């Protein structure tokens, strides 16, 4: 079983690397770029049997370590 964790910067929090990447894309001629946010994807291999257990445990990992609650939100997807 595998968990895909996506950690995203809250919309109201600045994302300097995303802003800079957006400006660089505009400089390269991609005028349609209206905004860029750089997220983090964490893939966790699990020995867990139950998907519900896996989700609960990985959400706990997010709360404790993988995301900073001041800055970030997260989502967890469990794959077989």
């Amino acid at each position: 079983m595998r968990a895909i964790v996506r950690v995203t910067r809250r919309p109201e929090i600045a994302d300097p690397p995303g802003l800079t990447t957006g400006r660089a894309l505009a400089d390269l001629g991609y005028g349609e770029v209206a905004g860029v946010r750089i997220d983090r994807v964490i893939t966790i291999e699990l020995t867990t049997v139950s998907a519900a257990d896996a989700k609960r445990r990985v959400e706990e990992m997010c709360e404790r370590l993988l995301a900073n609650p001041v800055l970030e939100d997260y989502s967890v997807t469990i794959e077989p």
Partner: protein
Amino acid sequence: MTIAVAVFPGTNCEMDVVWVLRSLGAEAELAWHRDVDLAGASAVVLPGGFAHGDYLRTGAFARFSPIMAEVERLATAGRPVLGICNGFQILTEAGLLPGAHLANRDLAFICRFVEVEVVDTASVLTAGTQLGQVLRIPLNSYEGNYLDPSGRARLVLRYLEPNPNGAQDGAAAVANTFGNVVGIMPHPERATEALLGSDDGKVLLEAFVRAAVTTPAPAGGARSGVSVV
């Protein structure tokens, strides 16, 4: 009473801090991050560097190092706790100071002297300064862009020049409500001898040493149930 200077894997400013604290008359000893007992320490400094490689986020792993339970105990008991640069980032990750740090606004590692202005003297770091006093101290960081959506941080030092890194309200140093826990992004320990270009950091660390000596030991242990922020 000893000031403990915490060392995580990747900390690199600990000897500078020990050197300065001793030159100011304090007893200062290194404390490895796996130390679980700081019973002999009256205060603690978390120095700069790249604790645990700054992996995931700055300070994200350091906050789980065994020594942090002791740092929290000292902070909650009202003892002086100072985080410098990466140490400041560890204190926010640990929740001992509100807020968090982002990459600098211009995505540049900043390594130069900056001027900061004292805006609050009621902290263990700024107790020896005057309101409005200007200090020249080196800044040396990539993730110094402090923000505090909660608004609970007490600004104690503010960048005087145009904001170098995008920090909220130009925050160069912030304190908790009680003023005993302070995080500072520039490095006062690198500005303690005129030979190094400035000795403006001395007045800050002198105040910290004084607080470490004079802060009364807590009666009845930690103030349990009292939020340190």
